């Protein structure tokens, strides 16, 4: 069940960093801790925080009654983490899922884990939970073996107790084994994980544990938090991006009904009132003078990126690209672009903060509670241990809620007024004042050799970062350069970062070359691939779809694309219908094959992949943040249209699994291949080669009628 935030007061909040230690001292049972010296213990590369108190935080605790609690640093953002972690712990402990409780995203109770952008949360957190559970299992088994004076192989855990194998019927409960004592183990040395062939719970489509609360309207999001004496805040926003507040007369606003205070602290200006609507109304009475800065213009976005480019990291290369390009039989170059896009979760950003003495507690809607804790600590001049971040249910994040800004603002306001403050954004604020996914400009130069295969691949990536840009193909000469640029808008993390844009450039370019050479797009890719998992995924989608290429100008088209991301391989086929006169694209069917290593919960993974296809179609077909004279124009769902029920195609999902690999399964990989699969299908349908996201209907129309 999702945590009832109202009940989390059981841990005294004024001792944010201490509670765990006290708890450890008091409680009996089995406790598996974070590794204390991660550097010395390979396999657990997690970093202790700036303050060492959290070293004592446990991953897992087994109470004498056999109930298991998992403490994990990441929150539930809809990816089914709670359920998947419960499954993994239950599997290793041979206990029913119903015995496992999962506490997520509470910095005072969970171990800190350094975020690794290349490792999906499920595998980063899940593999540690499995290791902790396996460690606990081995400890209990060893205790039972000792009690019966037999070797370890002769005992096993089953259904919450330990049984003696040679003598069925002889068993001891976990409570009896523990006997009121406390055992502490540290994660670090390798523990035997249950081999996939023996899995009984991992691999099952168990229903989401938080599902009943969700359908009853009882899941608690940050806007649902209620603290005694809580007030509501609204920020006063500048008239345009980059404007600076020169002065403000807050007297009229202070006199408005319900207003508790108008806070003006440096760059922060907000009304705090007894009701959210009153706070909002009163902001209109602040007389503010702003100094407008340079106005970013959308029309010069891509020139600006190119002009400001600086190499972000050393070029990655293999072979001699320049020489190979010079000696190639044919060369193909093109530039690709992708617009800024917004995360646009249906739940806008929000935070509730309260201060007690020298400590601050923040209820946050984020995927990165520890980053919020550190952000708040820094802004308020506190130690990290004086800040506790409790993550509520999160109504969609997609990377957009990583940054701690809103938690910092709420904490500053709470400190200024001396009472709990809820700060939430309106839809317009959500789409205007948060960071966006970086726009991308990608140049590809490619050389084909005598045998018709690609011999040289040279890729320059501007602004969106190199993630997913190194080709998964065995081109003999490859180079990748990634440039940092001055972007006009604020930008930050987004599911898969630059991966979808990089995959778009590569996969459209390959499709282009295949068609120029008169080759089948799938065969052309296969001749450059040796990765067996990728080949298997490609064959799976091709077979399911019944792959054959249509020839223009039928108006109906099929396109293919594939990609690799963080241990996953994905192949996708899209079928589209293009209306020649308008350039409108209707996606009718999508087939995805994704190999993400071990699949913990197949139905949940399908759900994630379906969702990724839908979201990916949004930025393939129409999403773009538009701006002019320093003002974001796309401030509502009417002007920033995400995909709706009307646009959803039939989606088939295949899960060729590699059970011996870590569970990398989330929806992100499926986002990578969808834009190119659709763009390639558009080419197949009407002969329009479009190299820009979202695919502009005008370009499709123009190219189709050329």
């Amino acid at each position: 069940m999702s945590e009832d935030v109202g009940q989390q007061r059981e841990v005294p909040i004024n001792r944010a960093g201490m509670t765990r230690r006290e708890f450890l001292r008091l409680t009996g049972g089995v406790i598996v801790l974070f590794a204390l010296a991660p550097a010395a213990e390979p396999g657990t590369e997690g970093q202790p925080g700036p303050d060492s108190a959290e070293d004592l935080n446990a991953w897992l605790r087994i109470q004498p009654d056999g109930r298991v609690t998992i403490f994990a640093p990441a929150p539930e953002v809809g990816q089914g983490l709670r359920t998947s972690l419960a499954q993994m712990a239950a599997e290793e402990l041979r206990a029913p899922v119903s015995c496992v409780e999962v506490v997520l995203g509470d910095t005072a109770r969970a171990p800190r884990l350094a975020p690794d952008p290349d490792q999906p949360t499920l595998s980063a957190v899940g593999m540690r939970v499995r290791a902790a559970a396996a460690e606990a299992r081995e400890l209990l088994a060893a205790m039972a073996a000792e009690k019966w004076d037999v070797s370890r192989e002769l005992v096993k855990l089953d259904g919450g107790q330990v049984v003696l194998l040679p003598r069925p019927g002889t068993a001891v409960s976990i409570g009896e084994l523990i006997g009121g004592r406390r055992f502490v183990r540290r994660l670090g040395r390798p523990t035997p994980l249950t081999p996939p062939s023996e899995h009984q719970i991992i691999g099952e489509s168990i229903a989401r544990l938080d599902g009943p609360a969700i359908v009853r309207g009882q899941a608690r999001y940050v806007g649902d938090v209620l603290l005694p004496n809580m007030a509501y805040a609204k920020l006063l926003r500048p008239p345009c991006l980059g404007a600076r507040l020169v002065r403000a007369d807050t007297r009229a606003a202070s006199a408005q009904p319900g207003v508790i205070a108008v806070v003006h602290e440096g760059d922060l200006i907000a009304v705090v009132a007894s009701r959210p609507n009153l706070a909002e109304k009163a902001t209109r009475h602040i007389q503010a003078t702003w100094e407008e800065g340079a106005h970013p213009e959308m029309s010069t976005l891509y020139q600006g990126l190119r002009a400001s480019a600086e190499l972000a990291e050393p070029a990655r290369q293999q072979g001699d690209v320049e020489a190979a390009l010079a000696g190639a039989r044919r060369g193909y170059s093109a530039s690709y672009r992708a617009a800024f896009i917004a995360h646009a979760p249906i739940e806008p950003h929000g935070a509730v903060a309260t201060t007690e003495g020298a400590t601050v507690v923040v209820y946050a809607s984020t995927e990165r509670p520890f980053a919020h804790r550190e952000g708040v600590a820094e802004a308020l001049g506190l130690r990290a241990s004086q800040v506790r971040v409790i993550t509520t249910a999160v109504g969609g994040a997609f990377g957009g809620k990583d940054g701690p800004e809103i938690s910092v603002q709420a904490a500053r306001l709470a400190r200024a007024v001396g009472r709990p403050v809820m700060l939430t954004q309106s839809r317009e604020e959500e789409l205007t004042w948060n960071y966006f996914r970086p726009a991308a400009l990608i140049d590809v130069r490619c050389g084909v050799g005598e045998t018709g295969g690609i011999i040289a691949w040279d890729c320059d990536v501007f602004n969106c970062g190199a993630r997913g840009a190194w080709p998964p193909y065995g081109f003999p000469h490859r180079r990748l350069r990634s440039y940092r640029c001055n972007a006009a808008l604020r930008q930050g993390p987004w599911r898969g970062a630059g991966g979808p844009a990089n995959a778009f450039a590569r996969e459209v370019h390959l499709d282009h070359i295949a068609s120029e050479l008169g080759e089948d797009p799938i065969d052309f890719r296969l001749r450059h691939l040796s990765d067996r998992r990728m080949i298997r995924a490609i064959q799976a989608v091709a077979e399911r779809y019944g792959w054959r290429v249509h020839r223009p100008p039928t108006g109906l088209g099929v396109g293919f694309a594939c990609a690799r991301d963080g241990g996953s391989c994905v192949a996708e086929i899209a079928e589209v219908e293009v209306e020649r006169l308008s350039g409108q694209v209707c996606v009718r069917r999508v087939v995805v094959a994704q190999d993400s290593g071990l699949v913990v919960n197949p139905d949940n993974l399908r759900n994630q992949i379906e969702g990724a296809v839908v979201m990916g179609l949004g930025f393939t077909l129409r999403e773009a943040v538009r701006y002019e004279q320093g003002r974001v124009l796309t401030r509502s769902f009417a002007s920033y249209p995400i995909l709706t029920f009307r646009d959803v195609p039939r989606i088939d999902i295949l899960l060729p699994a590699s059970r011996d690999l870590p569970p990398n399964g989330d929806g992100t990989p499926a986002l990578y291949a969808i834009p190119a699969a659709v763009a390639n299908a558009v080419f197949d349908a009407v002969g329009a080669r479009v190299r820009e996201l979202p695919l502009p209907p005008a370009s499709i129309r123009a190219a189709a009628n050329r």
Partner: protein
Amino acid sequence: MASQSEGIQIRVNGSLCQLEVDSSRSLLSVLRTELRLTGTKYGCGAGECGACTVLVDGEAVRSCIFPAGHAHGRTVTTIEGLAQGGRLHPVQEAFLEAQAFQCGYCTPGMIMGAVSLLRKEPNPTELEIRRALADHLCRCGVYPRIIRAVQLAAAKMSK
């Protein structure tokens, strides 16, 4: 435009509520802040996403743009009022069966929209479902499952 507090009477999930609020305030804000019925969500405040959908006299309305005063003397059902005597409404059951949610934030509004649709059209085609729910947004992209859930619910309710 100055508007003042006045007495409003609304029957919410079966109980009569007497409220002293600015009658131009949105029903959403009154439900969430005054009545602490937080299952109904804010997503846009402009009638564009459906997260705030509730039933007023059995009809789905966007409570974010529905003035509380207009609910005076009427019956409002929110997601909290759907289960009867601890038993989930068939639409809620169907959402669970189809696992038709990810983050769950759009779910209460989706469920209320589906309840209202099935009241008017107990046996909708897929196209009718897509049309009826077209203005309900789900950023997690759970649409295909929601369509399945509505079909499942229709089948349950026709039994």
